[in-house]
């Protein structure tokens, strides 16, 4: 069975139902609108470029077992499996990856969300504050006193 999805900029994609259902949001909408599937499902937060990429991801992972997603302590301990395909998939520029994270979040494609967040975390890891600021093009908006306070507080992490 096919499902049609419409991006925020009006582009329509037709995908297999089980592929689209990797998105929790779409899955739930399909349950609600069972009888009414002749018009495309609008994804108002997701642009065509991102949607294409999300669908590419879902196509590849269509047969993955669903993972329980809760915030329980132990569940995160399971290593997030990242195969070669995923590694290839994450070779995009960081702006694209950030948009993908947002798209995955709004469509609730959990594995993609985790993959993207891990990617983002890996970028930030071991960066100095200045490097992080450069990365996101943000300005230091602390007063010198506030800066000192945090620096002082940070000391205990080096124990």
């Amino acid at each position: 069975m096919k499902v049609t999805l419409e991006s925020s900029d009006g582009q329509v994609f037709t995908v297999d139902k089980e592929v689209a259902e990797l998105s929790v949001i779409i899955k739930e909408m399909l349950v609600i609108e069972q009888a009414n599937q002749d018009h495309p499902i609008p994804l108002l937060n997701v642009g065509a470029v991102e949607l294409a990429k999300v669908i590419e991801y879902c196509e590849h992972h269509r047969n993955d077992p669903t993972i329980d997603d809760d915030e329980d302590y132990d569940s995160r301990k399971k290593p997030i499996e990242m195969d070669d395909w995923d590694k290839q998939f994450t070779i995009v520029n960081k702006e694209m990856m950030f948009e993908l994270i947002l798209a995955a979040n709004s469509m609730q494609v959990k594995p993609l969300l985790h993959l993207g967040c891990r990617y983002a975390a890996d970028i930030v890891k071991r960066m100095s504050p200045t490097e992080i600021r450069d990365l996101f093009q943000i300005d230091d908006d602390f007063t010198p006193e506030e800066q000192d306070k945090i620096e002082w507080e940070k000391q205990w992490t080096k124990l």
Partner: protein
Amino acid sequence: MDLYSIDGEATTTRLVTDTEPTSSSISVIPVQQDLAESGKARLERLILPYDIRYSVFSHLSLQDIYNCQLTCKLLRWATSDQFIWKRIALDLIQGEFYFDIPRALPANIPNWKYFCKRHLLRQRNWRQGQVQDVISLDDNYQKLTTLQIMAPYVLTGCDDGRIHLWNIHTKTLLNRFQIRGEITWVEHLQEPKIVAGLGYDKKKMKSEIRLFSTETGNEIGFYEEKFWDLAICAINGTYLVASDGDGRYTTWDWRTETKVSQFTVDNEPSITEALYLVKNTILELHYDGMIRLFSIHGVCFGRFTLDNILPNHKVSFCWLHNDYSMVVWESSNTMAHIRLPLLVQDRSATSSDGHPQTQAQTQQSMIDRPITQEEWDAQGTEVYWRHQLEHTCNFAAMGGGRFQLLYVQIFENLMDQVPIRVHSLRRSGDNSMDVPMQEESIEHERQLGEYVTAHSLKPELGRIIQGLRPSRIDCDPEYIVVGLVQGGVRLLQFAPVDEELLREMPTLEGDPSMVGEVD
């Protein structure tokens, strides 16, 4: 007002709305992707959804989190969430405790950030032997002969037959029990709330075991053996086993107060150093490093040497953890942490059917079968680490967990002012399967590298416990417990004193991590 300067309460609310996959969330007005969007606006858009924020920052180490905090107010806010700090806290204590990690914050700890700080300070103090506070538990001033800490309880036995159960949080004496003779063994089962003690009367050369209920304070059992001395015991929720250390055993069902079996094992070359009940299988470790497993009725399940691990045949101390791993200390001062996979395997095999185990099922899931030598050779033991110690001591104790082991010694030759030494050890080796977290982080590398410190307690401590002679010692990650020849207990606290720590916690205006627990 900036969106991110809201307080912690609002963060909770957002958590609910963000994770709830309602269909309405899809029809939100699209965010304008202005080309001139500022870096800050873009970052804000990215980390505003709670799931993203949590998922990104929970991959970061404590140092990374602080580097983010130092960049700007937006990232400081984003990394100040209680759930993120809880994750960091749980990562930090992973492997330190054998018993359950705290799911909720202890009552005296206002937030998870504070928890992390307290934890790191405590570890540093351990490594440096810097005691922060000394708590005294004073009883009837008789020489302490047994001592056990299992937070929040401290259990002591004296040479006059008294047993004391203390609560260290409230610093109060919960129960006092009396047995005849000198106490040589005590055990406290928090569930089903009993204390068992073994006393030996030197004059009459008689030994006895008594059981008490910590709920009512009443004696609920009395056991003795007419023909030989009970020297070593073990108890679980149903059974009590006692031995003379030399091959004679009696077992009782203490719930029904009936004798289950009595048996003798002849021609054992050495004495029993440690006796445990693993489910309903009796596990014992001999002085010569031999492990013997047998049923409650005396059926032998196997005799195996630990020669490859303990070649010196001089076992002097042994501790069995609740994950069925065992730390053995030899008189020649080798220390080894051994896992006994066979014991664990049988346990998991029965619990894998997906049904929650009832008490009865758990009782049946003991090994309860003979183990062949081949089986033992293949998977009987696994060494976590071995370590050669520098010092000889006359009494030792250990606490801590799989990745970090803490142990303390009392010395025979009191060259130091305070004859106690504090050590910490981290496991070495390349066994990564037990280290599932933070693959690339520094924390991880440190866990695999061997790491040993030894310190005498700082001289200023001498002022506090000067003239007091330790007779027994025990420890957990929070405290060293010292039992004294003069009677009484001193708890040496390594965590910083709470009030001091709180005063040192700087806060920024509207820092949501300073708001209490949110879950």
